[in-house]
């Protein structure tokens, strides 16, 4: 599944980072690399963008970009 499909409060592990050019580079630079754990913190009032917690800080990105990040959801017990 992709990062944009996660619900608020759910955690996941990044498996692949898609996109290209400047977007992809920015995602990687900001620490969204494979095997990294992240959590969806909230959604903006108008439904987009989303806020995630990764590597101990809060990052916001648009859903269309989040859809390019493949993740594997962690079960609640796996937290």
């Amino acid at each position: 599944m992709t990062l944009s499909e996660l619900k608020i409060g759910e955690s996941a592990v990044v498996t692949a980072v898609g996109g290209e050019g400047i977007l992809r580079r920015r995602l990687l630079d900001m620490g969204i690399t494979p095997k990294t754990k992240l959590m969806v913190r909230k959604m903006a009032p108008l439904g987009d963008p989303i806020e995630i917690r990764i590597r101990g800080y809060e990052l916001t990105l648009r859903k269309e970009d989040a859809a390019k990040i493949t993740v594997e959801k962690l079960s609640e017990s796996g937290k």
Partner: protein
Amino acid sequence: MTFALIGNQNCGKTTLFNQLTGSNQHVGNFPGVTVDKKEGTIKNSGGAVVVDLPGIYSISPYTMEEIVTRDYLLGGEPDGIINIVDATNIERNLYLTLQLLELEMPMVVALNMMDEVAGSGGSIDIQKISAGLGVPVVPISASKNEGVAELVTVALRTVQNNERPKHHDFCKGEVHRAIHSLAHMIEDHAEEKKIPLRFAATKLVEGDEAMMDKLEINQNEREIVQHVADEMEAALGTDREAALADMRYSYIEQICAGAVHKPGDTAEQLRSVQIDRILTHKVFSIPIFLGIMLLVFWLTFGVVGSTLSDLFAAGISLVTNLADEALTRLDVAPMLHALIIDGIFAGVGSVLGFMPTIVTLFFFLSILEDSGYMARVAFVMDKLLRKIGLSGRSFVPMVIGFGCSVPAIMASRTLSSERDRKMTILLTPFMSCSAKLPIYSVFTAAFFPEHGALVMMALYVTGMVVAILVGLLLKGTIFKGNPIPFVMELPAYRLPSAQNVLRHMWEKAKDFVVKAFTIIFVATIIVWVLQNFSTHLSIVTDSSDSILAAIGQVIAPVFAPLGFGDWRAATALITGLMAKETVVSTLAVLMNVGEPAMLVPVLSQLFTPLAAVSFLVFTLLYMPCVAAMAAVRRELGSLRGAAAAMAFQTSVAWVAAFLVYQVGMLLGF
């Protein structure tokens, strides 16, 4: 001795810069771009200079800030690097550090916000981090001025002793092999171009086109680079950019695992989550944002700003009177006297009258910015502005535009992408500024006394609609292509420091005064001469004989299709370039009625009601006043760009007014 101060955004870099330099600083520009270059002398350092570089997350070749930083670091000017790192967010901050180490320059890491780490029961083993990075690490708290003196001592020492990073080999396996084989190949190129070898090799493995060009490697070598990268990608099962990002983050995780003890989030982070429950709340966030903007507006343009403005105006008129008396006593020629008092003092004085408003506004804006709230505004508003190709950050300058275009355009400086900045600067003047209100009120009183409020509302909405349409047009044409992605950190809320806020206000005020005494000064003199001399260069007694009136007569036919081909309307529009409210005072003079309020009964001699609407639409949209033009020129960094923006806005105004008038005629108004 020169140091480059570099770090991520929101890591306290500006605070540290202010602590290092005190008041010994000045702002310039990096050559050819509109990125600020702040420079200052470090206190108690024997004259060492520190240059504040833009806040960036990586040295990739994508954004203007990244390119500026990279060119500056490779350009040979700095002798050493001070890298500031946010200790509460150490993993992501060290990502930039690892790239800086590859430059093989003397470097010290300033581990900032250590007070917050300690405050939440955490600890960081400085020795271990330092050993892992191979450079000295100094724990500091920039906001409390703790550890800064020690930082300076260590920084000076690293340069004096030429202490280079002890190692930069963070890689292993396939990445290691790729970097080393390319390093071997490009050794001569790198030496010739004076680019650190390791940095160059890593960038080549990463697929950095700019570095390939810089090294001037030939086609054969390019193929080898591609081949080495392909082999690495095949062996790792991932591509080159991801491989290197992963290499850096893996090394960081390894260093931090043994050195960073973090029991949980810091108090500041926990507090931010709580604050965000309200400020980015599903329902309340937008009303709260509008409320905050309204409050800032009310305080700036209503309470504080207007009190200060009145005081300021009183001060200016006092100085004017003194100068007037002095000139009379000195028996200066009447013409020169009039130029100085009625031209320069009146003109520059009226523009300087904006100053209190600008300073007050930037007081509030820097608080909103430094506290971390602006990032939330971007988060909340992003979806609305995305459709016209902007991001949420542009919302604030646009809103300020309703007050005054000058600070609105100046506020665009904080936007992180050049494209957003340029588009915001182009669109902001379409937000109807408060100086246009006197025009609207005179015209509505004359033509639509029953529906004044409705007409004004319609004008404001027209401005916004035009901005949206023009935004869509620009997005599909000049600003086509990839915008900078909206992938942004939401920093923890922090109390803004008084020093930073005051310094920011001071910089903006200085900026504005410089403008007032250069471009605005010249414009004032020109307009005064045009108004007071006839085409035969003699002083006029009747304003209809002036050069300005002659120009008005020449350009008046341009406005005929808009319904106001009278030279007096054209002349008023020209003087409106000094300040928009001048449009009505000029009309009053040209119609021989003294006061603008007296225009109400006589305006129908010049305009039909439809032509009045068309005139209002033109006034709403045409090029901004000279103070705003000066701001546009400054922020775009080019006179040609500013001129093009003005021509563009005036064309938009002409087309809009033309449509209003012609369609109105067809409909029988």
